[in-house]
């Protein structure tokens, strides 16, 4: 119970990290920073997915985790290829750094859980995380992106993340 509470807090703080990107008007992210935020957000979810694919014994959770690894790896590959093509070197920012450290904290918490408790914590976090990512992409990243191709890539990622969110919510409902 306490562990789930801590996890919920972690999910909220991950969401907070992204919210930071959208509210701090003073520091509108540049294209290299946006590229880094996108790649980091993907990587964080890939790492959690790999852990869940390995640890969970619930077939639904396992298959969702594998989907996350597959899809986010593919999106990352596309994003990295585009950055290379555009000669754009992804640049770290406070947002990308906090995403990474929050992601690491989340992984640490998840490693300490097992069974149904792990499944619930992982899926709850996935719901909160995807909600936050979708909001950040729509409200902050896309409006601030200057390069048309990078903007188009972010726009294409929208339906994929929305599909992941729906999928995660379905599993969340089945776990309760």
């Amino acid at each position, binding site marked *: 119970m306490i562990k789930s509470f801590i996890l919920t807090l972690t999910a909220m703080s991950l969401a907070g990290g992204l919210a930071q990107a959208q509210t701090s008007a003073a520091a509108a992210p540049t294209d290299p920073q946006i590229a880094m935020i996108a790649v980091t957000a993907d990587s964080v979810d890939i790492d959690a997915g790999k852990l869940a694919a390995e640890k969970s014994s619930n077939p639904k959770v396992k298959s969702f985790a594998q*989907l996350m690894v*597959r*899809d986010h790896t*593919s*999106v990352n*590959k*596309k994003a990295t290829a585009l950055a290379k093509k555009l000669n754009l070197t992804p640049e770290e920012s406070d947002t990308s750094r906090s995403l990474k450290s929050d992601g690491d904290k989340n992984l640490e918490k998840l490693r300490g859980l097992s069974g149904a408790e792990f499944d619930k914590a992982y899926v709850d976090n996935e719901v909160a995380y995807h909600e936050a990512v979708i909001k950040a992409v729509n409200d902050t990243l896309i409006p601030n992106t200057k390069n048309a191709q990078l903007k188009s*890539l972010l726009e*294409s*990622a929208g*339906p*994929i993340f929305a*599909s992941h969110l*729906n999928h995660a919510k379905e599993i969340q409902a089945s776990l309760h």
Partner: protein
Amino acid sequence: MIGTILRDLQQPEYIHVLINPLPVYGLVGGLIGLFIAICQRSRRATIAALVIVFISGAAAWPVYHYGEQAYDRVLSMADNDGQAWLAEHKERAEKLIWLFYALAILSAIGLIVPIKWPRASLPLAIAVLLVGVICLGSGGYISYAGGRVRHREFRNESPPKALANPVTAETTPAVSPGGSVAPAAAQVTIRDLKYSPETIEIKKGQTIEWANDDLTPHTVTSEAANKFDSGSIDAGASWSHTFSQAGTFPYSCTFHSEMKGTVVVR
């Protein structure tokens, strides 16, 4: 291990290959037994041999059935020569399969009729032996082409005839980024987790190419079991499939179940 075996058993091509020795090698055993039984004039031995011949002949039916089901799947996996051999294999089987059914019926007659007319036993056994030998030849002729579908090492002569419209093999780099190699009659684009157009109509024998223009891998998998399945199509890659049967085929993406499409073959 058991899970893998169960999954294998859901593949028609697997079952086809698993049981297809029966109508040939089973028959060889049955016919040798029948020959010895005839020489020894033993009714008991004749009955045993006829039962083996009956099972071997009747087994041609499931072999043929699963072969038909596997046709589209194997076609999409084979190279051009393999596709030509597959077409030849199918044509030969369609032409000659009735011989095996006739043999099964004849051996059943050979088992039942002598119960009332014992004198019919010998001529019927000889008839089964003769038809059985013809079946054996036919079986060899059919499987000769079948063995060359996937075994390149057995292809010591040129293929019977090339298919007019070869299918892109999904195992070759024909699944190339964005580009098409197979002469597809129609194209479906996958983008934003949608197949576009959602419903596509083609004629029998035509090929459809699915181009994955999305950011993630997708599949093109028929809702009906064992009709067609692309496996994972990477972002930027494509996959082609030739439809040899008329009908309406709903399909979806096994990764993203909300993605649905339909192929209508006239």
